């Protein structure tokens, strides 16, 4: 349980975040301010925001839990699973999205393929983000339950209240700028936990020796590359094909909540630099999220649920003051992930669904209001669906499972869309639909195709491959786009701004 000073730190943090977020309300006058921060934000803030949204509560709790169960191989998600994809995004994709004046990734797909592709992609992301919200709220409940003994629903509702208020009023400026504070707090708190944790287990070498001698199941705990026949969810084949080639790129290039941040940059240089700066910060993440899980193997070897590794480490290792700091760091990660999803989903709904289908040509104030109301509705939906997460064995794996349904096909059409002029609207549409259906099929019958516990990496790879092949075949059989329709949308053609080509 938290000591008095820790309660004070956590409450001061929550109240401070709320006030800070509400302060940004005065910078929101138009829908562009709400969804793109008025296109005025600097690279360092965006870079920090990208990292902190990605690391979030799921990484703190879920990846620590995976490190507890499977060892350091889960670190691949933040190294090969992020850095190369972020650099690719910075130099190839972001300039097209930024100069095109786009609000959403489906908006690009709509211009490149057709309205149906845009709508399906957008609806899929909205569905994923909405489900993701529930998982995030559940993650907070797990930690609060262990650390403070709070009932699940109290913790979910208090998180939803704070994040909902500042996201509703402040839009993406509040989201990004609170992320900056949250990243600083997370890094300071995380490094303090690692330092004291290492001190508690007698240093790195001592910890390695203890874990390896704990039994045969711990022999590969420090192998970052796992054999292809491993029973863990991270065989090297899955890491290489599923993570590095597909999921990492799909996440960093095709994920609305990540790319939308780059679109808030004050100019193209800042948009690119934000991704590069974010990739540099990303390299430190495994230290913050893996180490506590590994240390917990020594300090708490008999945990029934790996996801409790981090909460137990905080509870047993940290002194008064730092428990509050670390808890605030966790809460920071959670809030960051939630606010990102809320704002991105509101953007997707307003720009890709509401504006083209429900009310065209309304005033800017109207769309601003729609974005804010969508934020509120999502918040209620996330809270209501959060108990679903308890049916899955690991919180982080649950997210990957949801994502693997459509990350592969979505990335296939994005990749071909930008690099291959010949791909057509029917190629993109059929690839998206068949690819997602194939991913669902693989997931339903996974016992027949895969021998590992959770084959989400393989599912994303095979669904990507199917989407890619379908796109190529159907595109070759259908009428190609005219050159003028592809201007500014395909690599190596002129990049156009909103109104003029340059």
């Amino acid at each position, binding site marked *: 349980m938290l000591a008095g*000073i820790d309660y004070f*730190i956590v409450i001061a943090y929550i109240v401070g975040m709320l006030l800070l977020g509400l302060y940004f309300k005065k910078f929101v006058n138009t829908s562009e301010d709400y969804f793109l921060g*008025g296109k005025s*934000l600097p690279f360092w803030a965006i870079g920090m925001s990208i990292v902190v949204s990605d690391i979030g509560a799921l990484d703190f709790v879920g990846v620590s839990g995976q490190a507890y169960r499977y060892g350091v191989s889960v670190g691949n998600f933040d190294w090969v699973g992020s850095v190369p994809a972020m650099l690719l995004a910075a130099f190839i994709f972001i300039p097209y999205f930024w100069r095109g004046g786009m609000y959403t990734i489906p908006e690009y797909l709509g211009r490149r393929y057709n309205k149906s592709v845009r709508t399906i992609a957008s609806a899929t992301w909205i569905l994923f983000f909405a489900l993701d919200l529930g998982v995030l709220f559940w993650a907070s409940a797990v930690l609060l339950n262990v650390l403070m003994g709070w009932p699940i629903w109290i913790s979910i509702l208090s998180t939803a209240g704070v994040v909902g208020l500042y996201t509703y009023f402040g839009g993406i400026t509040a989201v990004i*700028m609170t992320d900056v504070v949250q990243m600083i707090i997370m890094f*300071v708190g995380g490094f303090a936990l690692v*330092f004291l944790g290492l001190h508690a287990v007698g240093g790195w070498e001592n910890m390695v020796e203890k874990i390896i001698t704990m039994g045969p199941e711990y022999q590969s705990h420090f192998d970052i590359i796992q054999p292809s026949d491993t029973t863990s969810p991270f065989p090297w084949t899955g890491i290489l094909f599923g993570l590095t080639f597909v999921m990492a790129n799909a996440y960093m290039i095709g994920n609305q909540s990540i790319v939308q941040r780059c679109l808030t940059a004050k100019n193209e240089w800042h948009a690119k630099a934000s991704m590069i700066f974010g990739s540099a910060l990303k390299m430190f993440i495994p230290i913050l999220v893996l180490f506590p899980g590994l240390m917990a193997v020594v300090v708490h070897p008999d945990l029934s649920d790996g996801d409790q590794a981090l909460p137990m480490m905080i509870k047993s290792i940290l002194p008064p*003051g*730092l428990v509050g*700091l670390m808890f605030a760091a966790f809460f920071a990660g959670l809030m960051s992930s939630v606010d990102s999803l809320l704002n991105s989903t509101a953007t997707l709904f307003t720009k890709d669904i509401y504006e083209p289908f429900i009310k065209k040509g309304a005033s800017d104030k109207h769309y601003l209001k729609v974005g804010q109301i969508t934020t509120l509705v999502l918040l209620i939906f996330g809270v209501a669906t959060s108990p679903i997460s308890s049916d899955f064995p690991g919180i982080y794996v649950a997210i990957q499972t949801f994502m693997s349904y459509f990350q592969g096909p979505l990335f296939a059409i994005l990749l071909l869309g930008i690099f291959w002029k010949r791909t057509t609207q029917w190629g993109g549409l059929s690839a998206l639909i068949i690819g997602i259906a194939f991913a669902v099929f693989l997931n339903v019958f996974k016992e027949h195709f895969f021998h590992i516990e959770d084959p989400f990496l393989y599912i994303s790879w095979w669904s990507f491959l199917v989407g890619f092949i379908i796109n190529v075949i159907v595109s070759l059989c259908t009428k190609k786009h005219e050159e003028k329709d592809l201007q500014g949308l395909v690599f190596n053609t002129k990049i156009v701004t909103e109104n003029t080509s340059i």
Partner: protein
Amino acid sequence: MTEIELLNKIKTAKINRALGVFILIFGLIVLVAITFTETFVQQMTDLVAGMVLILIGGGMFWKSQMNLVQLSTKNKTL
């Protein structure tokens, strides 16, 4: 510098100032927490964590305050 650019810079400076104040206050609270710790290692960890936050927050506040003074002067002359 156009008026829009100037207003954007003022907006950024105001945002940074608010962030700086928040981080600075949080750092001070962590320093106060030293009195609740027991061992030397714990005290030093709190001290370093608090000082890092104070330096970052203080730096942001000071820099943005300086910028705001300069930008406000320019804004008046425009």
